């Protein structure tokens, strides 16, 4: 009994423990790892991925998947860059609006046409990518530097990066919705057993609809930050973001079969993957080894492998313990 409980705790909080260990490692080994500049840069850069992973986390908890987030973010970045001369609000609205539109298409395909989420969002991924290229005329679109639009990605809220503040706010809302609202509980119920949830009277289609729309909107918001941070709408960015987001969600301990998951540990998963890359940079700086940037994906992959193997062991034990 005690052992089963221990296993469950490690399963849920393993990612937090790993994150703490990695940060401690970096703190002890590198002088400027926990410096103000490094931490803020890290948070600023990873906020886009955090937003995308948040949407993905909700979709996965319902037992679905959203492969379109990367190209939807690209579409959002182009739309917001085009609207950026008119100011911050139109820029934000255009990017989020484009994301919501793509999310609506996903939601309709999944709930009305009953397509498998994998295929529906695969199609949307291609459509969003094509639309982004069409809107942008096959090139990057510079944002306006006069309208204040770049503040969203580059500015600070006192000393805290604005995009990171947006991400933190989004995760707070996400966490509240998941834990304290009927919709949030319904998300988990649907992932646990969709037919049973429907028979229990939950409006499963409505909840799934919301989840895909939210994922699209968050991807659009990530696109706005992308455009604002790097000064351009980039129609070919976002390749592989969906898989990075899935990896972060999985590393965060959410099961891909749906029905269980946590918003906070997803954020920890994003940070863990981000810090891993950061540590690699510092290690290169030490001069002991010289690993090219290409090693980052190898190490991320290995890391995912370890987590997945651990998860497989833990979930099997948990099933046995029940």
């Amino acid at each position: 009994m005690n052992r089963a409980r221990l296993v469950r705790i490690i399963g849920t909080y393993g990612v937090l423990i790993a994150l703490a260990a990695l940060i401690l490692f970096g703190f002890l080994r590198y002088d400027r790892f926990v410096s103000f500049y490094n931490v803020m840069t890290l948070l600023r850069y990873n906020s886009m991925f955090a937003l995308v992973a948040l949407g993905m986390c909700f979709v996965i908890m319902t037992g679905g998947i959203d492969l379109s987030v990367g190209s939807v973010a690209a579409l959002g970045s182009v739309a917001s860059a085009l609207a950026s001369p008119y100011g911050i609000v139109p820029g934000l609205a255009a990017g989020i609006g484009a994301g919501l539109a793509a999310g609506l298409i996903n939601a309709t395909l999944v709930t009305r046409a009953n397509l498998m989420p994998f295929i529906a969002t695969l199609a949307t991924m291609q459509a969003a990518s094509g639309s982004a290229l069409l809107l942008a005329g096959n090139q990057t679109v510079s944002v306006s530097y006069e309208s204040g639009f770049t503040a969203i990605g580059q500015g600070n809220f006192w000393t805290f990066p604005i995009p990171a503040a947006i991400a933190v706010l989004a995760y707070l809302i996400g966490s509240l919705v998941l834990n304290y609202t009927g919709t949030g509980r319904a998300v988990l119920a649907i992932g646990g057993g969709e037919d049973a949830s429907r028979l229990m009277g939950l409006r499963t289609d409505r909840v799934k609809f919301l989840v895909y729309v939210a994922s699209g909107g968050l991807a659009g918001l990530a696109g706005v930050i992308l455009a604002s941070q790097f000064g351009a709408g980039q129609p070919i960015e976002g390749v592989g973001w969906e898989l990075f987001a899935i990896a972060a969600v999985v590393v965060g301990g959410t099961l891909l079969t749906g029905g269980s998951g946590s918003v906070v540990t997803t954020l920890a998963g994003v940070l863990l993957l981000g810090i891993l890359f950061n540590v690699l940079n510092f290690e290169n700086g030490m001069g002991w080894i010289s690993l090219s940037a290409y090693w980052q994906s190898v190490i991320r992959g290995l890391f995912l492998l370890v987590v997945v193997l651990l998860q497989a062991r833990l979930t099997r034990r948990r099933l046995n313990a029940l």
Partner: protein
Amino acid sequence: MTELPRSYAERDAVARSFDLFGFLSRYGTSIALVLLVAFNLAFTRNFATMQTLNVNLTQVCTIVIVAVGMTLVIATGGIDLSVGSLMAISGALAPMIFMGKILPIGSIYLGVAAAMIVSVLVAGLLGLFNGWLVARFRIQPIVATLVLFIAGRGIAQVMTNGNLQTFRVPEFQWIGLARPLDIPAQVIIMAVIVAAAAWALKKTLFGRCILAVGGNEKASELAGIAVSKIKLAVYGISGLCAGLAGLIVIAINSSSDANLVGLGMELDAIAAVAVGGTLLSGGKATIVGSLLGALTIQLVRYTLLANGVPDAAALVVKAGIIALAVWLQQQHRG
């Protein structure tokens, strides 16, 4: 509105009109293909030429080869996201071997033979690794193959340090450039692989086992099918197909760029399989369908491009067709 009971003949007519819908969804891909060809014959200039045929076939054949392996994996209820990365690995490894960067090899023929065999086998072994994760640890296929999707391209980039490898080695490049009897070599390879896989899936015990595992894994296990071995085999085959496709791509390009070889291939292959009529949940699969699916997607793109529609718009249309095709097939099942 009449409330009279309908005669059997009338009911029959209703049933037949539903059958028409079923017919559409079953043969929709073939019909679409025929319509596309007809449209092109009427409106696209220079369509009915050997050159057009060859251009389309050479562009589609790496997708088809990968889609064959993908069909088998999907037939067991799995998915393989790592194919594009495995293409990059085999594409990076082969030139390193035949250009003598790893071991100096005296004869170019020996070097090319070693390069082809070793790089395809390495991709196959990595495929087996995917299968091992899926079968032994019961990790969901989408996550298990995500590992190599992420790490695989990194491995290829690390191997080449991200550099472009260029070469002019006709002894190797026949696989992408030779034209025996005016037919591109890779088209012949594709035809052989499609025929072999279609035969194996329909006529051999192995093929029936694949479908049984995808249809109902527990029942197959209880019926005495070695489920783990079947899974290992299909992921291994998918790896081999990806490795071969990687070689063809670099042979056509006369160069290997680890950043680009096979990029996005997993999605093209899955789309071809889905449009072709294979159930994504497993248990029902058609290799020829995947071939037709890939040809349809390719021909849509060609038709749009040949008639002046930009490539980006073609992507949007392609997305619509994938969604429509899968939706139609579902109507038939429902």
